[in-house]
């Protein structure tokens, strides 16, 4: 069984104009990634590390500069005709960060959920609508169909967004920080919903987040990105309990943790490198306390202890 989604050597560059010169921002610098059936993979990293760009390239909102995207083992062509595009959208859906901005405030819930069914010509609307609302635990469904988004709470809205995403029975959902705008008391409800959709509907998730604790809870694997590159990848619990790359260690130390005995002083200097002119060697070298001379040379992602790490220490 090939992975449902596979990415090989993905690159994305954005041109920016500065005065008379045109520079390129290298947002993704060669990313390889696999998403298997029935799997949740979380991509974590700081803002500007390229995690959202990755998601948007995979959703075909941006065209990749280089690299291949394979869906169920078949390479996606650069251009899709209308029919292929429709088929792709049916299989791959997106969930965005802000449930206040991603639902049209002037339309009723029923309208928003019917749209994908109309576009994909799926019959038996009424029953599907009810089932899908039950799937996202908004019961009784009838009471939600005629409501407007402003009548719902943040958590309920995000559930509607999920309902809209699963209504075409997709295989993959690309989720961009789906819980970061939600309150603590409902955050875990949405995380549990993602787990349930994975178990019961066989949906695979590529989940972008900066919340390491949430990523640890729901994912099978975690991918850590830094300056447009994957720096570490491995089993979710293992990677958080025993980070190997110095950047993953830094993220782990920086995450809020009430169970931490004494807050150890975090040694951090500097910020991520410029992506206009990224360093040739390890991108984390300037902030890394273990840095040595060989870090100036390019470092490959290597397999160590069932993990992939881009670091000369291993």
């Amino acid at each position, binding site marked *: 069984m090939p992975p449902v989604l596979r990415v090989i050597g993905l690159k994305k560059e954005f041109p920016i104009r500065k005065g008379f010169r045109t520079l390129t921002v290298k947002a993704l610098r060669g990313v390889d990634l696999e998403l298997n059936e029935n799997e949740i993979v979380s991509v974590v990293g*700081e*803002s500007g590390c390229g995690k959202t760009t990755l998601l948007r390239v995979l959703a075909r909102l941006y065209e990749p500069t280089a690299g291949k995207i394979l869906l169920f083992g078949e390479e996606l062509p650069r251009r899709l005709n209308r029919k292929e595009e429709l088929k792709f959208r049916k299989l791959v859906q997106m969930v965005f960060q802000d449930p206040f901005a991603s639902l049209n405030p002037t339309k009723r819930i029923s309208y928003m959920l019917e749209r994908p069914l109309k576009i994909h010509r799926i019959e038996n609307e009424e029953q599907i609508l009810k089932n899908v609302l039950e799937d996202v635990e908004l019961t009784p469904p009838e009471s939600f169909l005629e409501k407007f988004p402003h009548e719902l*709470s*943040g*958590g*309920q809205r995000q559930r509607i967004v999920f309902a809209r995403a699963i209504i075409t029975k997709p295989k993959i959902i690309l989720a961009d920080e789906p819980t970061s705008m939600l*309150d*603590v*008391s*409902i*955050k*875990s*409800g*949405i*995380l*549990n919903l993602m787990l349930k959709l994975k178990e019961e509907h066989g949906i695979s998730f590529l989940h972008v987040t*900066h*919340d*390491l*604790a*949430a990523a*640890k*809870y729901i994912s099978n694997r975690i991918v850590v990105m830094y300056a447009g590159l994957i720096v570490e990848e491995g089993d979710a*619990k293992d990677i*958080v*309990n025993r980070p190997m790359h110095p950047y993953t260690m*830094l*993220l*782990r*130390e*920086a*995450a*809020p*943790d*009430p*169970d*931490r005995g004494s*807050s150890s*002083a*975090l040694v*951090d200097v500097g*910020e991520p490198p410029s992506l206009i002119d990224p360093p040739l060697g390890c991108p984390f070298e300037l902030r890394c306390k273990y840095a040595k001379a060989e870090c100036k040379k390019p470092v490959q992602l290597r397999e160590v202890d069932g993990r992939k790490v881009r670091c000369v220490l291993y």
Partner: protein
Amino acid sequence: MFEVVKLNAGYQFRNRFVHAVRNVSFKVEDEDFFGVAGESGCGKTTLMLASLGLLKRPGKVISGQVLLDGTDLLSLKVSDLKQIRWKKISLVTQSSMNSLNPVMKIKDQMADVLVKNHGFSKNDAYELVKEKLKLVGITPDRMESYPHQLSGGMRQRVVIAMALLLSPKVIFMDEPTTALDVVVQRSILQQIEELKKKEHFSIVFITHDISLLFELATKIAIMYAGEFVELGEAKSVYSQPLHPYTKGLIEALPSISKDLDKYKSIPGRPLDLALKIEGCPFRDRCSYAFERCEVEKPELRFVDGRWVACHLY
């Protein structure tokens, strides 16, 4: 010492009153780190604005006192308040990175308040600005910068330096790090702790990120529907929460060091604060609720070294 006594505040609209802060009292000792945690809409920002006399129409304070070294801030005239603000009490706001004026140099906007309200000469003001920026780790050459030339973390540091200008005794911080990345957030919080030790001020820290608060605060207040439902030492509240809402919040919180299989969210949603609340405001979401919760509102009571508003105790 800073003390809020039975504060009631809210927002008056034509036909309804949103009662956002209900009978809130708390005391902040010198050099305390006092955390207020709650979900959005629970009234925590209103509490801060009301305590500082910054609540603008339609917001208004109905009753209560805010005592700073014995003087009631709410009864002072605006001109007297201006003397106290920045000097005795100051504020770091939510997404304060965006609250800097984009067309003013850092040094000018920092010196502004010193020259206008506290009788500094421009040169003295710049000297003080330089000193305080050094304190938060910003080199003096950055004084000439405009906000857009600084990173998010540096802008946040500028705003903290601004709050420190006249060495106030109490600093309110309303989600000072939520817009920042985890690593930057951590280094700024560390700096705040170090500064607190060096400059001897107390902090009232308001946030929805309770895992952060449990780690940093010495005392914590959990706010729900405009009221404090639990108040006590942060460490003991975390290890042994008494109020069902606090329990629910802690159980809902994915932890980075625990390997729990399941986290549960709290069912239901917070109440509409425009309505009159009878009984316990949390009863509809509470799994321990019984008849008494329907009819009688639980008062804050002192139980096992902390304050709880629940009929279970």
